[in-house]
């Protein structure tokens, strides 16, 4: 291209074609070189872009306003028509909207009052929590895997040469479950019932290997614990591919989990069957995923790759019913943890890299952030 000498008119013409993507590749390169070597031109094109953005804002608002006023007219007509059909007691059609809203108001207040009453009575029953908390009762089975039992039954086969029982019992691996990354900096969330009374806890998966973790926060009522990697050489998990949902998901939504009911990671899928967990627990979902001991602490994920819960247990007499603690409890735990000054800067992932992926790809990404949690306990 010949020496680039543009007058002001030509420059704006080029700028418009550049911003519209109408230049050829060669032209684009030449124009970008020009901008790179000429700060005045660069700032001119920046201002130009701002002006075009403002024009676009103006245009978008004008269109939206026109659309909204159409919708509003149509909507008022619909509401008036339905109000007239129902009762037609009012002689002022234009006030039907208000009348309609006013009608629902006493009901709302009544409902609000009723829910306050329920919360109060629940908090009296449970004593220390606003939410109805699950108590360990028969019928509810926490899903930590009793490794020792499995080991023993397996060891029957290979036990013949290893018979020096007695002195100095080593710390034995007692329980296994699942946990998943909460932050890229090395916090992991899992079930409290899994790691309570531990002597030491490790996490393990194919990506990070085996790492020692320490418990940094536990909420027994919510059955949530947060662990932190205690390995000096650990330098982060990398960006988490998922986000944490902060609202309830809908009944029937497809959900899935990854967990370690055995030594290898296992995938399970199903749907949300109820907004409440065992015995009406409002902090949990009932889900139709077949879970086994060892699934405890695993992530419950929706189709868009949002973490919506943490697998907690299942009903013993009913095989189909498993439970997961809702993600807002995890978020509450994060908030509680933030009170601790060394964790005040916790940042949860805001980018969801799973949203648009097919399930197989979602699992491939997710797998690196789900760990087997191994709990060792001397005093059992």
């Amino acid at each position, binding site marked *: 291209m010949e020496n680039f000498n543009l007058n*002001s*008119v*030509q420059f*704006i*013409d080029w700028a*418009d074609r550049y911003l519209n993507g109408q230049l050829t590749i060669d032209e684009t390169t030449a124009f970008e070189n020009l901008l790179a070597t000429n700060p005045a031109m660069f700032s001119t094109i920046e*201002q*130009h872009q701002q*002006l*075009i953005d*403002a*024009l*676009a*804002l*103006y*245009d*978008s*608002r004008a269109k*939206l*306003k026109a*659309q*909204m*006023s159409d*919708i*509003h007219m149509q*909507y008022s007509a619909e509401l008036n028509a339905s109000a007239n059909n129902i009762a037609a007691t009012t002689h002022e059609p*234009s*006030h039907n*909207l*208000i009348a*309609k*809203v*006013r009608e*629902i*108001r006493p009901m*709302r207040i009544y409902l609000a009052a009723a829910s306050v009453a329920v919360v109060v009575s629940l908090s009296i029953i449970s004593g220390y929590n606003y939410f109805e908390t699950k108590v360990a009762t028969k019928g509810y089975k926490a899903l930590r895997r009793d490794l020792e039992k499995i080991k023993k039954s397996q060891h029957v086969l290979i036990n013949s040469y290893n018979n020096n029982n007695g002195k100095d019992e080593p710390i034995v691996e007692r329980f296994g479950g699942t946990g998943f990354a909460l932050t890229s900096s090395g916090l992991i969330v899992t079930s409290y019932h899994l790691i309570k009374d531990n002597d030491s806890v490790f996490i393990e998966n194919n990506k990070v290997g085996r790492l020692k973790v320490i418990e940094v926060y536990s909420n027994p009522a919510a059955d949530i614990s947060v662990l932190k990697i205690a390995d000096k050489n650990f330098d982060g998990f990398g960006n988490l591919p998922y*986000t944490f949902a*902060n*609202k309830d998901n*809908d009944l029937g939504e497809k959900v899935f989990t990854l967990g370690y009911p055995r030594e290898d990671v296992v995938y399970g899928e199903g749907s949300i069957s109820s907004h409440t967990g065992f015995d009406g627990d409002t902090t949990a979902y009932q889900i139709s995923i077949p879970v086994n001991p060892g699934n405890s602490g695993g992530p419950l994920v929706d189709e*868009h790759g949002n973490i919506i819960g943490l697998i907690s247990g299942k009903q013993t007499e009913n095989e189909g019913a498993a439970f997961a603690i809702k993600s807002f409890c995890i978020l509450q735990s994060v908030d509680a943890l933030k009170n601790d000054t060394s964790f005040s800067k916790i940042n949860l992932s*805001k980018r969801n890299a799973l949203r648009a992926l097919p399930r197989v790809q979602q699992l491939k990404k997710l797998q690196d952030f789900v760990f087997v949690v191994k709990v060792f306990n001397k005093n059992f």
Partner: protein
Amino acid sequence: MAAIVRTLYTTDDVLIEGIKLDRNDALEVLYKRFYATVLHLVISNNGSEHDAKDLYQETVLIVYEKFRYGNTELTCSLKTFIYSIARNLWLKKLKEKGSGNVSITDNESFLNLTDEMENADNNEKLHEQISVALNNLGEPCRSLIEDFYLKGLNMSSITEKYAYSNSDTAKTQKYKCLMRLKKMFLNTNNDDKED
């Protein structure tokens, strides 16, 4: 035949996706779904039905601009988000009316949304500036600018429409109009800063 997929937009996520894709039916669903909430807010806090309509449309604009240009993460339900924006705007309007201590009777939970409101304020100022500039621009400049930058007419169509002798003349005219617009736009900007 192109398939027209209709969706009921039952969840917030689907609705937000529809808004981002600029679908008219998504706007309609959103508008109808949350109107009563804002209407209730306004009429139970010294406002009329007319005030409610204006306030609601202002709120929906802000919601749209957030999802189109801004950060699209929601930290609450769409309903709470819309209620919170409307509440902020209504509080501001009540203060402007100047009736001393202003408080709002709430029937929904809400968030403060400081950042969102700041963004909305900036967009509002920008919109005010560009509107003033466009209104003062005069014809045929305003039409020419709108035809080229908003309606996407190319230079040869513009040459034809405005009967310029050739496309170079058209380019020069466009440039002059643009410079006038820019000057007015930046001037209102400076006035604002001095205020």
